[in-house]
Structures are given as structure tokens and as C-alpha cells.
């Protein structure tokens, strides 16, 4: 069982103090975490090196302005950090980072990964809005009771992978009734344990997977089934696909914020997919009319085949869609079935190669020659 320390402080304050002391004592050289930008409620991920600047850090603030896995990848794209840095990220963001590392887009060495049992994040359209603080306090009430918090992302509501994998340290939040007064840090790895003496509290022997957590998981699994069912089209095929994606503007925001979509230039943004003007006459003759710009549906299908097997269901794509397409739920759903086929859990194991990168002779023989 992982070493656990109970700290007699409010969880947000306590984690803040813990990180600040690591920074002050120079156990780490920087903290990668959410930071308040201003009084208008905006938060963003920041790398913070000065204890003074750290005052604006809000590590557990329930928003995901960018997927931190993607942000950490931009930090470590050209190699590992030489100086130790702590990074606070949610379980799905950590899974995204792991998927990116597999694709040579990041490096975890010298990064102390701190994650949490996660109650989800609020929809981004609440950020900077009047109701923000109200929603945040409601959020924490739900987290304490291990309930699905209102105004959280749809993918958060049905996320059953809310316990982090690969975290050096885990902050227990879900189902912890007394989060206002006390909270527990779990030191899961030898790397994490090195920092356990910096946490001033009492050792406890508790498993993070409490009954509340197990019940909550079940609750969310039920919701997943419900949401997946709701996105199930009445009939499968082209017509349903067209219906789902018909409002798409082709802004490709979903792909820009997707942590798995790491290509610098998406194939669908490249000249390869410029509509060939010379085809216009014949296309119009055959079809009578063309939706323009064309190729929106192909973009989604293409993106899906490229990344759905690694979709970690963070929900960024749905949150940025200006026309409310339930991109994340659709991709999660397709992802879930693909992942099952490949017996693959995205973001679980850094050593396990992504399915498209591995050839197994005995895989899918039913579809193949024999």
C-alpha cells in the first residue's frame, strides 16, 4: 500500500503550502500548475519558479483551459528538463501526457507528477462568467459527497478513470467529507516518497480506493452508458453522421485543443485537402449541389481514425466547439470500442506502444486473410 499522510489543512490550502515549501526549499525548481491570471476568473497553466509568483497558483481549481498533458509536452518537446519540476495535472491530462511521450512529444524525466482523485472540471464557458465562484463552491460540495458535480463537462460526468495512473503523488479529493479541514496525500512511487517528509502530517494506512470511490465509479459507469446511448444515432450510416456533424464550421478547434492531435500541420489543414477547383463542374453535374467548404465530415472521420484509439476522454474538444457538437462523447464512444478491440488502455503504460505503432501477426485475423 502506498505511503499516505494526512494533513490537517483545507485541501486547496494544504496542497498549495506543500508545493510552495518544495519550491522554497528548492527541492524542485519549478511548479507547473494552474494560475489565476487576474481577478476576472481566468486561469491558465503556468510554470512558476518564484515563490512570490506562486501566490496566484490554484492547483486544484476545477477548470481545464488547456489539457495539461499538451502543455507539458510543449515544455518537454525538445528533451527532458535538467532541473526537477513538479507538475499538477488531472488523471486524464496525465494519460494524455503519457500518450504524447509514447509519440516522442514529451519527456517525464525529472518531473514530479502530482495528480488527484478527480471530480471533473467545469465547462470552460463558465470561466470568467458571473456564476463562476458559485459553480466552484457547488463543485467542491459535490466532490466531498462523491457526487457528479453540476456544470461539469459531459466527459467528466461519465469518467470512470478518475483515479490517476502513473502519478508520483495523489491528492485524495473525491468522497473526502472533511476536505475543508483535512486531506490525504498518497505517495505512490519511490520518486514520490522522496518528498513525503516535506508533508507535515500523520501517516495513515488507508487505501485510496474507498467504498465511496467504488460506488462513485459505478455511478459514473451508469452515466457513461446513458450518454453513449444518447449519442447512439437512430440508424447507423452516413445520414446520422451528417446529422451529428452538420453544424461543423470546419474551425478545427477540436483538433487544436486535442492533446493527442499533436501534428504541427493537420493533413486536413494542408493543401492536400484544398478542394480542386477543376472538379467543380463535374461534381455539380453529378450531385446537383455541394456543401461548402467541403470535407468537414471527412475531417472528423480522418481525425477519428488517427487518434480515437488514444482518446483519453478529457472533453477539451466538446468544450471548444462553437456549435455544440458533442465531439468528445462521440469520440470517447468510438474510442472505447476501438480500445476494447485492441485491448488498449490509453495513457496507462509508458512502455506499451500505441496500437497503430505495433504490428501483431495474430491480431484481427478474422478480418485479414485467415
Amino acid at each position, binding site marked *: 500500500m502506498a505511503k499516505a499522510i494526512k494533513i490537517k489543512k483545507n485541501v486547496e490550502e494544504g496542497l498549495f503550502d506543500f508545493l510552495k515549501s518544495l519550491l522554497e526549499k528548492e527541492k524542485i525548481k*519549478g511548479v507547473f500548475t494552474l494560475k489565476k491570471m*487576474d481577478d476576472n476568473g*481566468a486561469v491558465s*497553466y*503556468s*510554470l*512558476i*519558479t*518564484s515563490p512570490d*509568483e506562486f501566490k*496566484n497558483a490554484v492547483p486544484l481549481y476545477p477548470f481545464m*483551459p*488547456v489539457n495539461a498533458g499538451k*502543455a*507539458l509536452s*510543449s515544455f518537454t*518537446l*525538445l*528533451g*527532458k*528538463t*535538467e*532541473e526537477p*519540476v513538479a507538475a499538477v495535472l488531472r488523471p486524464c491530462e496525465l494519460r494524455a501526457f503519457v500518450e504524447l511521450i509514447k509519440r516522442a512529444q514529451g519527456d517525464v524525466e525529472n518531473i514530479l507528477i502530482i495528480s488527484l482523485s478527480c471530480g471533473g472540471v467545469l465547462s*470552460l*464557458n463558465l470561466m*470568467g462568467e458571473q456564476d463562476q465562484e458559485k459553480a466552484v463552491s457547488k463543485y467542491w460540495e459535490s466532490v466531498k459527497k462523491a457526487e457528479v458535480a453540476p456544470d461539469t463537462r459531459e466527459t467528466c460526468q461519465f469518467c470512470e478513470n478518475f483515479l490517476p495512473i502513473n502519478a508520483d503523488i495523489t491528492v485524495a479529493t473525491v468522497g473526502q467529507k472533511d476536505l475543508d479541514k483535512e486531506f490525504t496525500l498518497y505517495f505512490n512511487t519511490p520518486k514520490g516518497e522522496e518528498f513525503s517528509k516535506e508533508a507535515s502530517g500523520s501517516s495513515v494506512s488507508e487505501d485510496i480506493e474507498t467504498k465511496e470511490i467504488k460506488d462513485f465509479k459505478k455511478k459514473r459507469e451508469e452515466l457513461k452508458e446513458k450518454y453513449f446511448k444518447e449519442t447512439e444515432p437512430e440508424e447507423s450510416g452516413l445520414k446520422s453522421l*451528417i*446529422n451529428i456533424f*452538420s*453544424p461543423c*464550421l*470546419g*474551425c*478545427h*478547434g477540436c483538433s*487544436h*485543443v486535442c492533446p493527442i492531435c499533436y501534428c*504541427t*500541420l493537420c493533413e486536413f489543414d494542408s493543401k492536400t485537402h*484544398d*478542394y*480542386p*477547383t477543376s472538379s*467543380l*463542374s463535374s461534381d*455539380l*453535374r453529378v*450531385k*446537383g*449541389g455541394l*456543401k*461548402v*467548404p*467541403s470535407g468537414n465530415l471527412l475531417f472528423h472521420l480522418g481525425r477519428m481514425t488517427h487518434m480515437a484509439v488514444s482518446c483519453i476522454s478529457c472533453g477539451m474538444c466538446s*468544450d*471548444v466547439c*462553437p*456549435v*455544440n457538437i458533442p465531439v468528445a462523447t462521440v469520440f470517447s464512444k468510438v474510442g472505447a470500442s476501438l480500445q476494447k478491440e485492441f485491448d488498449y488502455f490509453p495513457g496507462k503504460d509508458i512502455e506499451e506502444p500505441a496500437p497503430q505503432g505495433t504490428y501483431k501477426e495474430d491480431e484481427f485475423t478474422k478480418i485479414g486473410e485467415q
Partner: protein
Amino acid sequence: MNNNQKETKTNPKKGKILPAEKGIREEVLNIFKKALAENVFDAVLIPAKVPDTDAYSWILLQDESLFDIADPLPPVMTVQGGRALSSFSKAGELDLKIAALMRPCEIRAAVELFKLHQIDLDHVALISMDCPGAVPLTDYMNDPKKMGESYKKISEKWEISESLRPACQNCHRFSLMDGTASDLHIGAVGENNKITLISNSSTGNDILEKMGFETKDSLKDWESKKDKLVKEKTKKREAFLKEWKEKTKKADGFFNELNKCINCHNCMNACPICYCQQCYFDSQMITFKPETYLQKTKEKGALRFPLNTMLFHIGRMSHMVLSCVACGACEDACPVSIPVGRLFSMVGDHTQKEFDYVPGLNREDPLPLQDFKEDEFCEVETPNECEEKATEEAK
């Protein structure tokens, strides 16, 4: 329809008034049906409602039956029309005569894209229509039925409603104006039972002639209604500019508006002027080693990730704001409700005035940054000489 003919702008005094008992939308569609049937055009680019959904889109149609789904005045601006037109005409020369019915700001974007070599306009007749504005995309998608109905009322009454997109509330270029680049304009302001066809170029003359429309009707009625609304909206726009210039007088005020940005670049991808295949800010030109990031962080205490969230907006602004047509597509696409359209439109207003440039009007007007004038901005470049010259002139 060739380029040379287009240079002769007519100064329309007369037009063709058509009754529209069944409503303006219906009558506009009838005109296009007739034009297509009479081979005035080979295809029509027009907004349409995607069957069985609430979504709108652009359709380039040749088959007359597709007019059933067309809607000349949809409640939303989906893809900016200039962008839609460019999507199929940038990779070659069109071999069809196309009529494109677009909102005036979309026409302006199309002209800017033409100047940027992203559109083949030689084979396109641009047809503009008085525009009552559009409602925000997200509002519409949240409640299509309610917003659709409310838009219908707004568009019938030509009301400057708060339900409209901010860009549309503050738009004073919603109709035909001096220099508008459309070939044909459909006047509809203030009317629910008639429309006025106004030719605005030799191509426009040809179209009306081929369709057998004689332009003998007086434009006075339409003009007076239009002028009244233009006046009202110009006032509104001036108030908006004043308010926002005050709000963003200091750099902090400006950046505060942008600090919610999550770096999705939706604004850029929705912007008709941002035509680059790959934006510099999406490239790997600005990637550093972790040590460099840490060094930068230590200098400032903290460093925001992803990097250059603010620089992106400033960079994009400096690249495109002279051509900003204030269509508001950026603001419509922003998932965190940054008033990005208003910010850009405000800065555009200022910089465009400096260059004495209105984007999207005459297509012969060169882009300011591609046009070197020796005496331009002499007060910045050679202040002493400039002063001397000014004193001499004063004498």
C-alpha cells in the same frame, strides 16, 4: 464577366422594384431560380439549412430542387461567406459562372481574399443584400427554435436588437455603400413586401438585362430608409468605439480582455482574412528546450503555457487587422466568450483610418501594406523633414 468590365462602377439612380408578397426570402429565391433556369449563372452559392437538422451551411447548387433548403437570410453566419467562396476557388480557375449571395461583410471579405489571391472573382458575380445582422452561433445552437423565431422578428423589423451579435449591432456597412464591390445589390431595408434590385457594375447590368428586368424604378424610397438606418447604426458604432477605446486605453485593459484565451485559435480559423495554410503561431518556430523555458520563467517568476498566448493575438492582429471587415466570425467561434471581434474591429477602425483604407471595397484599391507611398507616415519616418514640409506648406 471579365475583370475589365468590372472597373466601370455605375452610380445607380434607378433600380427594379419587385413585389414580395410571400416574403423577402421567397422572392429572392425566385430571382435566383429564374437566373439559373435562364442560364444567367451556372451555379449559385447561397446559405442553406441542412435537411433534418437545425444547422445552416453554405451550398453551391446547380440543381433547382435544392432551392428548397436555401435561405438567403439565415439567423446565423456559419462559415464566413468569403471563406466559403475561397474554399473552392483558390486552387484554380473556375470554369463556371457563379452567383454568390452574401452579406455585405462577406462580400468585403471576398474582395480582400481576392486581393490576397485566394479567390477567383473573375467568374463570380457578387450579390449583396441588405443585412439585418445575425444572432450569435452559440445562442442559436443552444435554442434553435427560440432564436430562429426571434431572428425572424428582428429581421422583419430591422431592429438593432441586443440579441444580435455584437459585430452586427455595431455594423454600419450592412447595405450598399459608396464603393461596395458587389455587382448586384438587393435592397430590402424597411420592407417586407417588396425588394429593390440595384445594379452596381456592368456585370450587374448584364444580369438584369438578361433576366429582362428594366431598371426604371426610383430608389428614393429604399434609399431614405437605408440612410436612416445607416445613420442610426453609425451612431451606435461610434458609441461602441468610444466605449471600447476607453476600456482598453491602457495595455492592461486590452490584455485583461484576452487573458481568458485558451489558445485554441478558433478565432483565426474562423477569420476569413487569416488564410495562411499554417499560422506561424501553430508552427514549431517558437519551440525551446526546457532549460530555455526555465530560464525565461526565472526571469519573470512565472511563464504561461502554452507560450505566446498573447503574442498570438498581437501577431495575428498586425497581420490582418488592416483587412478586418468586422464580420465578428472570430467572436462567434470563441469558446470562452472573449470579445475578440470587438477588439479587432476597434483596432481595425483606427489603423484603417491611418491608411485611409476601407477593406473590401473597390478591388482595385491595393492592400495598404503592399502599397508604398513615399510621403506616407513621414511624421514617423522622417519627423524633421516632415515638420519642415508642413511649415512650408503652411506658409
